């Protein structure tokens, strides 16, 4: 049962208005592809109606609702492609459009967040960003520079441990040094592991 009936009535009223608007749009639109997109819009409002119930059960019902909607959308897209004869198999199957546009911003976000996290976790996060970038943009396997940096970072990490042991009053410097050094080291290692393609000179 709904705990707050009046709020539910308001919500379902708004949902019905949305349904009417989207159905009017569907009637007025004549372009096939746009009609397909509009049906997706109506499906989302359908999910809204389920979500209005606001219980755990409703939450469990949204998932199959989404799955069914997506399945229908996929099936119809296939029919549309076949109908329009718009079939052109991609040359490189593991290359989708987002891999051209996303990597730069993602690598900035992930490396930035990794630096904030610092330490081992930060290294992993930043490393994932770098791996993603290399995967999307391609890379030549000349990793001497990264290997060198990784080596120095590891050495700095050890230095930080010596600071802890020998000069404990400079613990803050040691923490910072260890955190940033392990960040660089893990990131570099992950980047190396992620992009090794087995070229002959590696």
């Amino acid at each position, binding site marked *: 049962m*709904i705990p707050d009936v009046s709020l*539910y009535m308001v919500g379902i009223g708004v949902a019905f208005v949305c349904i009417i608007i989207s159905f009017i749009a569907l009637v007025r639109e004549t372009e096939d592809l746009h009609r397909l997109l509009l049906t997706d819009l109506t499906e989302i409002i359908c999910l809204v109606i389920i979500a209005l119930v606001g219980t755990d*059960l409703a939450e469990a019902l949204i998932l199959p609702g989404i799955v*069914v909607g997506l399945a*229908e959308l996929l099936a119809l897209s*296939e029919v*549309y492609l076949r109908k329009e004869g718009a079939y052109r198999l991609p040359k490189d199957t593991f290359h989708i459009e987002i891999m051209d546009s996303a990597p730069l911003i993602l690598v900035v976000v992930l490396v930035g967040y990794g630096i904030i996290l610092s330490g081992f976790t930060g290294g992993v996060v930043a490393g994932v960003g770098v791996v993603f970038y290399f995967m999307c943009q391609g890379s030549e396997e000349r990793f001497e520079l990264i290997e060198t940096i990784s080596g120095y970072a590891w050495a700095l990490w050890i230095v930080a441990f010596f600071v802890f042991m020998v000069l404990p009053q400079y613990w803050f410097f040691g923490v910072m040094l260890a955190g940033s050094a392990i960040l660089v080291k893990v990131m570099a290692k992950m980047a190396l592991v992620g992009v090794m393609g087995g070229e002959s000179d590696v």
Partner: protein
Amino acid sequence: MFELPTTEIGGDLLYATGFGDIVEYFTVYTTLLLVFAVVFTLLAVFARPERQVDIAFGGDAFYTKDIQKDDLRFQRFIAIACGIATMGALISGDVFNFTLFCAMIGITNIGIVASYRNKYVLETAYEYGIVAMTATVPLFGAAAIILATTGTLSMWVLFTEAVTVPLIAKILLLVGVMGEGMAPFFIGKAEITRAPGAPYVLMIHVSSLLIFLRVVEILLSM
């Protein structure tokens, strides 16, 4: 353990099995429908597809349409899936499961004709698909409103006298099922029957017909 609230509509209860509050059950009525669905699914499994013959107008010439093996396999798979979804809708004792099975019937109905390269058939299948997709709104909407007003989706509880289902939910459910299994209405356009492959295309009509008969039972009992 289980007792059907009313036996006037579906006949005597033959068998019921419970999964929590979801109770799948067989009455005389649904069992008959189920047998029908099973027979047609078996037909789809074992039958060979028809081969259409076109007569050239004004002469003795005719040509037959061959069905490629890939198309045949795909169609048969989808037709069997459609049959299984129909069976699920027939014995389901939960409103949301019923709506899900109906939506699946809608998808498989598109799928059965989607592998043809005939432009008219594809055009019609696309229109059908648009309607089937928009029909999920009243279909799931009805289930959500039933859940919101009565607090349950189990038909077992909904069929009792104590629970009243709002009229709007019943109407939406009917509209949704009409949209999903709309072949009997939409066949007026007749293009979809240009698709060759008799036992599989028949599955579209059989599934639509059966979920109509089932939803009538549900609506009368609620």
